[in-house]
């Protein structure tokens, strides 16, 4: 005979009520990455064997810089969302889970800002 109240038996169960944003942004960034990845692979092929000046010349075109920043940004966001799921799946120690999640999310933002700053300062 359980001594728990009906309320205590149900608290915490049921819908989590949040998480759709994560699912949506994961798909949105995925769709955006289809053309961006293709663009990246094609351009990377063009830049194989290019010397420093050819590569810099490529980076002076604003379309290339724009797409590169878009590619890196969307890629980092998609990666960070995906890694979040992996961490939540496999790491159950709350302290480690939180630490890793924060580290990866902060690193993503830092890398993105870094890339934008580098490309702007170089131009």
């Amino acid at each position: 005979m359980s001594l728990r109240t009906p309320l205590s038996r149900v608290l915490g169960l049921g819908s989590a009520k949040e998480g759709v944003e994560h699912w949506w942004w994961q798909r949105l960034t995925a769709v955006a990455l289809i053309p961006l990845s293709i663009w990246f692979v094609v351009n990377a092929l063009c830049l194989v064997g290019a010397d420093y000046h050819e590569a810099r010349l490529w980076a002076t075109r604003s379309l290339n810089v724009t797409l590169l920043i878009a590619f890196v940004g969307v890629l980092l966001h998609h990666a960070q969302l995906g890694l979040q799921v992996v961490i939540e799946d496999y790491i159950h120690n709350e302290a480690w889970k939180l630490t890793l999640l924060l580290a990866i999310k902060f690193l993503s933002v830092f890398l993105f800002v870094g890339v934008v700053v580098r490309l702007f300062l170089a131009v």
Partner: protein
Amino acid sequence: MANTDRPLSPHLQVYRWQLTMLLSITHRATGIALSGGVLLLVYWIWALTAGQDDYRVAVEFFGSVIGRTVLFVMTLCLFYHLCNGIRHLFWDIGRGLELKSVYASGWAVTVATVLLTLGTWIAAYMMHGGQS
């Protein structure tokens, strides 16, 4: 904390491996690998904006045997994750969820990955004659 020393029933050693399981875990594995690959991309951008000497070091690294191996594996991961990702997006809109379709699309993804990877690397060598 839960007692994790208790004996568990075997699962991976017992359950018959299927294409679906393999492709699913490979999608996760390639995703994780590509997350590491992003760091290489950021490094390349840093080198490009750093100056001729730093860029040469980066190019030498990517052109080395280790570098090319890493890039080849990254290409494989990229095309696999891309193709299987599209397969996932079709599932998300409710298409192709029948068992036959799942297996057919699964094989298509595997073949496409190999073809795209080989095609890209052949193109790379053809365009630049084996130099980095």
